């Protein structure tokens, strides 16, 4: 009983501690404070050679960043083809469900982190455009007589077809951004889209800028997930929403066995045959196993300061969408 209470007290203190840490970091008082008891981060002055996982391998933290960069550099060209092959096209449904959950309204400012090839950004633009068109049609039906200014504006195409919505795609990898830009050009997306090279752990944006922050299949590759979550909290406006689509733990034992068999036996073979790269896809399936479960990740998001954190498991838990609000 006593231990329960002390645990709760400890975690409460820990949370407040980490929040104070963040404020102090911003105001530059970090040198006098000891490190966070939860062990989430180390101060910039002391940088011990901490180890982390790269798939099932153990590497130092600096190494992991470089290795992940190389993985995505080599898979960039075949990224979309491989996604379709590995998930048999189901990844499209997952991404559509993420947009459905987001329900953006015209005027939403979206930041898509680790959004390299632009899947989420393009879906967002389609959604907002379709919404805007629907709104216009409803307006026309409601009031049949438009003023001459409105008619003139329609003919001059001065109206913003997105209704003020903007999406910024941020990725740490140049190759992935290059492929994304090529796709945008090929599919005709121009307005409302920006491409930024940046690190999820240190976003090149000001505080309180975006309405929605999404990260789809990217956060498990980040070296310090808690830092990425804190950055997400920083750049969101109050009332903003954090959405994460990521591979997670399967809840059904039978499907889990089949999923493991498929992941470890088939996916690296597909990677070798289609993309000529076994090791990158071996890393992919191993990194999925290393990612925390739905509940653990939910707690991590709460620790970063988000509230009303929920998750929804899709396809028996193969992927999960986590959602939190900055209030």
């Amino acid at each position, binding site marked *: 009983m006593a231990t329960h209470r002390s645990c709760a007290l400890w975690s409460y203190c820990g949370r407040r501690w980490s929040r104070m840490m963040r404020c102090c970091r911003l105001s530059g008082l970090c040198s006098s404070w000891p490190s966070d008891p939860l062990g989430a981060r180390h101060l910039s002055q002391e940088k011990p050679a901490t180890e982390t996982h790269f798939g099932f391998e153990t590497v130092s933290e600096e190494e992991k960043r470089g290795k992940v960069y190389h993985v995505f550099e080599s898979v960039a060209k075949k990224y979309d083809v491989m996604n379709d092959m590995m998930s048999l096209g189901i990844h499209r449904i997952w991404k559509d469900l993420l947009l459905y959950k987001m329900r953006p309204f015209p005027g939403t400012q979206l930041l898509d982190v680790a959004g390299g090839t632009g899947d989420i950004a393009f879906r967002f633009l389609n959604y907002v455009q379709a919404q805007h068109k629907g709104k216009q049609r409803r307006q026309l039906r409601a009031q049949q007589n438009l003023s001459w200014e409105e008619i003139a504006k329609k003919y001059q195409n001065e109206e913003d077809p997105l209704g003020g919505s903007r999406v910024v795609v941020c990725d740490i990898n140049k190759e992935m951004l290059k492929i994304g830009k090529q796709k945008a050009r090929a599919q005709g997306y121009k307005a409302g889209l920006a491409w930024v090279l940046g690190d999820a752990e240190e976003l090149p944006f000001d505080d309180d800028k975006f309405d929605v922050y999404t990260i789809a299949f990217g956060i498990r590759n980040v070296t310090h997930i808690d830092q990425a979550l804190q950055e997400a909290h920083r750049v969101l406006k109050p009332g903003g929403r954090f959405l994460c689509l990521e591979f997670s733990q399967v809840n059904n034992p*039978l499907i889990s*066995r089949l999923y*493991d068999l498929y992941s*470890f036996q088939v996916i690296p*073979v597909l990677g*070798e*045959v289609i993309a000529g790269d*076994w090791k990158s896809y071996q890393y992919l399936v191993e990194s999925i*196993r290393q990612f925390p479960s739905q509940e653990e990740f939910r707690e991590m998001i709460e620790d970063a300061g988000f509230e009303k954190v929920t998750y929804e498991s899709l396809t028996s838990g193969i992927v999960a969408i986590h959602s939190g609000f900055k209030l």
Partner: protein
Amino acid sequence: MATLLRSALRPLRALGGRRGPAADVWLRGARHGAGLLYPGHIPTSPLQKALLAAGSAGMALSNPYRHDMVAVLGETTGYYALKFLRDQMRKDPEGAEILQKRPRISLSTLDLDKLRSLPEGSLGQEYLRFLDVNRVSPDTRAPTRFVDDEELAYVIQRYREVHDILHTLLGMPTNLLGEITVKWFEAVQTHLPMCILGALFGPVRLSAQSLQVLISELIPWAVQNGHRAPCVLNLYYERRWEQPLRALREELGITDAPTCMSGAWPRP
């Protein structure tokens, strides 16, 4: 119901399907240093080898520029043929020496200046000329990855590096017709399933005229020479650079190429 499904899954488990970090020690441990037999080795289960063989065969056929797929096909299907080749090498004194010393043919191990200074008509000169004329390099051979025996991995690596020298010996260029002819020769010599498949399915992409030439002249010639010549992997080529090519061909019993190919690549 659950027990039925579990018993159905038992054979699947035997195929090598393993779960997360704890149960996956076989895959994990092997990948990260403990079970690696040679640098670049990727241990694979029988199911993975089967899938790789099928996938690489299909990909190699649909996209002939994927040389890495041909290599993967050779590695995953060549277990018995490689053992046969290794035993052949062990029986021959020169071959046994190669197995022991493990020489490699690559741009870093070849002394290009010395080879260029060799007399006209020698093996070394002709080999260099072949590399220049066809614009290939011995360094483009993929390293072995999926063979689960370290000696057999060397044997297939040696086979790949000797492939260009075979082109020189047979006088075949690197166009599709030349490659198929060399594959027929290699199929008879090595019995590697990859060579046999390449020899049988390669001609699918040929025009009717080339096919005619292939069947009437090149295949019989390649097969005859393949049977007549001793195992070509038993030659320590690094010691034979000065040997005149003609003399080497006589030693191996390789006759001149059919006249249809004589214009393709100037020979002494």
